[in-house]
């Protein structure tokens, strides 16, 4: 081709392109210099860490080159960059073994969320009006530093309140050290469904203030009280993986599952036998099982050790917990209890699990201790096929974030906000929010007012939610895909794990990683603060804290720090190569034995005839995930509801009250009422109604705002007295039909071949 021709052609095509661009605004965008070294069309997989729930799964992210519309230096344009396309489980990770739950997979949508905060914001309107103005990072950080230095002069920094979503690893260490350096009380890691009570029980029974790990893959018999361990509880992916093995992973052995709970959970639906027992009776039932084992000499009483000693009457054979007596109190037939006890004893290794609602009772600690004692009696503690504790990686103290004396974050937060008596000596002056949303997830009345009273609020969150809408300053964090990530899982793995991952993609928006911002602020604050946080970046901090692992026996054999670092980044962390030998418990602490406790409920049975169960939802957990459209449209497996809330009612109860599927029902407690459509639910006790948590946001992106109802709003402040944990399953309610509601159901019929004519 002649050069002139070429010029002609390019001139023509250039003109065409220009004309084209007139019609389509996106073609008028500036093109930035590509930020990628990827080969177009070829996917690479990069490790990351899932933070959607506290389980701590390792992930792997599929990254491909793509074209994104971004703002750079105030200019909207197009950029070629590596974009995360899919999140899967990291196949090598000891917690989730390459698997990932729907919530973890949906975390991709956090990064690409249309309502993500894209740059630092400063409040301009009234508090809570949600009017913000863009500021520069420099100005934002300066503002934070100024406010913090002002704090520093307050008595011992007591005015600083840090409320974060539960995290572990160096992010937690950073927050804790930051608070400590400023002389502030420790940060509060808050989410609605907290685990302090179980940690406390395990500390008492086994000397481990840690959540348990279940070696279900080798169990032959699993008895579970209320825990939705295949759905949302503890480390669900790890438990699902193990469950699959328990059922069909071994030749000629199939583990059995018995679930005891008054409302069938997604886990209960898998049970070979499902037993409805009244809420709060779990501890008593566990004692009855123990009683049978002791009475029939299936196991010696001494096997329970310290865990058994915590229960009054254990040594004398639990005479007050005979199956007949327990049948009278719980309605569970004595014959069933006897059979269960015999089956448990006859099918080793067997394990008993307790979690979720049974712990959220006024007698939750007792229930947990009773189950722990039963586990000890069975000899399943720290044994294959039983209950064990994930070891901490050596040389990384406090990385799992395990407190010596577990206390309830709920209790601490309420106290700090002045919602419980006595009022705190110094009210908070400055609130730092990191992903926690107390206005939504703290059920007490007056949270909003207490938050609004705090003079200065800064938030690191990615979204404007009910709490961060009150913020004076928003310094938006990167999403996990854009950040350095680390985690030290507390449970779910039989080996020690320290997850680590570099960013999988460049930041999409004008955000900065919270740890980097804190470190920068620490530097600016100077003095003791900068001394206790001497790193210039989070990457540097991670590098130094992970260095000791190089010497440990584990998944990485490296001769140099650099080699170790590079391998850990590539692999997504470090894990020890061996399961820590069982039976290495420290000597147990002495504690007073507990007598049988009965659950107390808020509200009288006459006025409020129904137990109320606000359970953790399969899609949104406690509501933090309600902003993700994939999860909103995912049908909850038992109800098949999408995009909404519902009230589960037993069919007999519903027909007695004249309530039909989809009718709008008002659920009222002494504290207040919420409305949601009724869902006829065959697996719930007639004297109970249940609602999933997670919806009913007043302010949480376009996908969640104004959708459904928040059951937390009607919970009474019943607490477990020893730990101060909220007994969220201890409220009684009444229900009334108030009109016609709307349910987006994915599933058609409840039953496989319903006989419609039978109903008439």
């Amino acid at each position: 081709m002649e050069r002139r021709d070429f010029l002609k052609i390019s001139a023509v095509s250039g003109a065409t392109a220009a004309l084209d661009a007139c019609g389509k605004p996106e073609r008028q965008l500036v093109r930035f210099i590509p930020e990628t070294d990827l080969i177009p069309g070829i996917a690479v997989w990069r490790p990351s860490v899932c933070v959607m729930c506290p389980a701590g799964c390792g992930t792997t992210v599929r990254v491909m080159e793509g074209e994104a519309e971004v703002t750079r230096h105030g200019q909207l344009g197009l950029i070629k960059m590596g974009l995360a396309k899919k999140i899967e489980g990291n196949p090598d990770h000891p917690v989730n073994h390459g698997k990932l739950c729907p919530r973890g997979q949906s975390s991709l949508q956090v990064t690409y969320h249309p309502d993500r905060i894209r740059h630092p914001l400063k409040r301009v309107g009234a508090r809570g009006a949600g009017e913000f103005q863009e500021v520069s990072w420099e100005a934002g950080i300066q503002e934070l530093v100024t406010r913090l230095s002002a704090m520093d002069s307050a008595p011992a920094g007591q005015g600083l309140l840090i409320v974060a979503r539960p995290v572990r690893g160096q992010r937690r260490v950073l927050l804790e050290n930051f608070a400590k350096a400023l002389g502030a009380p420790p940060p509060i890691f808050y989410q609605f469904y907290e685990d302090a009570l179980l940690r406390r029980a395990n500390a008492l029974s086994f000397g481990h203030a840690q959540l348990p790990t279940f070696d279900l893959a080798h169990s032959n018999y699993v008895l579970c009280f209320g825990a939705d361990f295949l759905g949302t509880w503890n480390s669900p992916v790890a438990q699902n993986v193990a469950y699959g093995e328990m059922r069909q992973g071994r030749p000629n052995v199939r583990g059995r599952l018995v679930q005891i709970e008054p409302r069938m959970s997604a886990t209960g639906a898998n049970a070979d036998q499902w037993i409805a027992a009244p809420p709060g009776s779990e501890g008593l039932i566990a004692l009855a099982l123990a009683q049978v084992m002791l009475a029939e000499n299936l196991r010696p009483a001494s096997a329970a050790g310290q865990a058994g000693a915590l229960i009054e009457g254990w040594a004398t054979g639990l005479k007050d917990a005979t199956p007949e007596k327990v049948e009278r109190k719980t309605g569970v037939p004595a014959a069933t209890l006897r059979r269960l006890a015999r089956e448990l004893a006859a099918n080793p290794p067997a394990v008993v699990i307790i979690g979720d609602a049974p712990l959220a009772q006024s007698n939750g600690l007792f229930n947990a201790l009773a189950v722990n004692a039963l586990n000890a009696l069975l000899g399943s503690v720290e044994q294959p096929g039983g209950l064990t504790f994930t070891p901490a990686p050596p040389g990384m103290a406090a990385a799992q974030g395990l407190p010596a004396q577990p206390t309830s974050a709920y209790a601490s937060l309420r106290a700090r906000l002045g919602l419980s008596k006595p009022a705190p000596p110094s009210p908070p002056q400055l609130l730092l929010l990191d992903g926690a949303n107390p206005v939504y997830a703290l059920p007490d009345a007056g949270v909003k007012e207490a938050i609004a009273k705090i003079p200065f609020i800064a938030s690191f969150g990615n979204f404007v939610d009910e709490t961060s809408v009150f913020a004076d300053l928003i310094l938006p964090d990167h999403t996990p895909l854009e950040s350095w990530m680390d985690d030290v899982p507390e449970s779910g793995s039989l080996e020690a794990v320290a997850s680590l991952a570099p960013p999988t993609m460049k930041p999409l928006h004008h955000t900065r990683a919270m740890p980097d911002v804190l470190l920068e602020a620490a530097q600016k604050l100077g003095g003791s603060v900068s001394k206790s946080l001497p790193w210039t970046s989070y990457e540097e901090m991670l590098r130094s804290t992970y260095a000791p692992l190089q010497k440990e026996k584990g998944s990485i054999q490296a001769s140099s720090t650099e080699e170790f670092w590079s391998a850990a980044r590539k692999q997504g962390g470090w894990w020890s190569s061996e399961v820590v030998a069982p039976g290495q418990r420290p000597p147990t602490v002495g504690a007073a034995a507990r007598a049988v406790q009965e659950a107390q409920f808020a509200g009288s049975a006459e006025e409020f005839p129904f137990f109320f169960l606000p359970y953790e939802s399969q899609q949104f957990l406690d509501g933090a995930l309600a902003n993700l459209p994939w999860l909103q449209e995912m049908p909850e497996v038992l109800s098949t509801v999408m995009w909404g809330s519902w009230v589960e009612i037993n069919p007999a109860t519903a027909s007695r009250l004249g309530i039909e599927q989809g009718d709008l029902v008002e659920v009222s407690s002494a504290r207040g009422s919420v409305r949601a459509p009724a869902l006829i639910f065959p697996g719930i006790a007639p004297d109970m109604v249940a609602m999933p948590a997670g919806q009913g946001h007043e302010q949480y992106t376009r996908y969640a705002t104004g959708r459904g109802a928040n059951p937390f709003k009607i919970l009474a402040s019943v607490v477990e007295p020893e730990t101060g944990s909220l007994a969220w399953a201890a409220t009684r309610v009444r229900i009334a039909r108030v009109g016609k509601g709307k349910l987006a159901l994915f599933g058609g019929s409840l039953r496989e071949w319903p006989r419609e004519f039978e109903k008439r």
Partner: protein
Amino acid sequence: MARQWGMVVDLDRCTGCEACVVACHAENNIATVGEDQAARGRAMHWMRVERYWEGNFPNVRVTYRPVFCQQCGDAPCESVCPTYASYHNPEGLNAQIYNRCIGTRYCGNACPYNVRFFNFYNPVWDKPLNLQLNPDVSVRSVGIMEKCTFCIQRIKVAEFRAQAEKRPLKDEEFNPACVQSCPPKAMVFGDLDDPTSEVSRLAQSNRSTRLLEEVGTLPNVIYLRSVS
């Protein structure tokens, strides 16, 4: 080499966690339709976990059953399509050629499993959610049918890779997104014509059944009955 891709679903392992549902959405660019459309029965879930109640409280039980395109050997959807949009590919998959589809929705009626989904509107991704789209999978426009493909894009990539490396495709070298994500490993994917593959080994189980076998569709998805 002719293959017959198939899947075994062990109902005794399935826990109803729905990881497969979101995995499928993420992998296959399936649009979310929003509350109103979902309430009208237009939600797109190529993969769904069916839930059936049995009995009455307290003797109540639930069975879960993941259902997706059964990739029938004799697929009713194929013969009824006037434009060959629904056709049988050489590896035994019921492929849907989106470009050929004119939207008679006849295949959707003929499918006994109701696993075909129709784009009643153009799919919408609020920017920048469009960046999550998998470039290996086409986005379907209004008026056409779509369905589970056994993640054919993954099959193709694996086949190309094996071809380039001049080696046979290994069993379980790759998996559809749902199988990959399934925490309790309830699903196994592979070549049913390869007697050594995990999937054909499991298919021999005395628990194996096929869904709606009596309709005569010869599905290539085998369900292993739950034991109790």
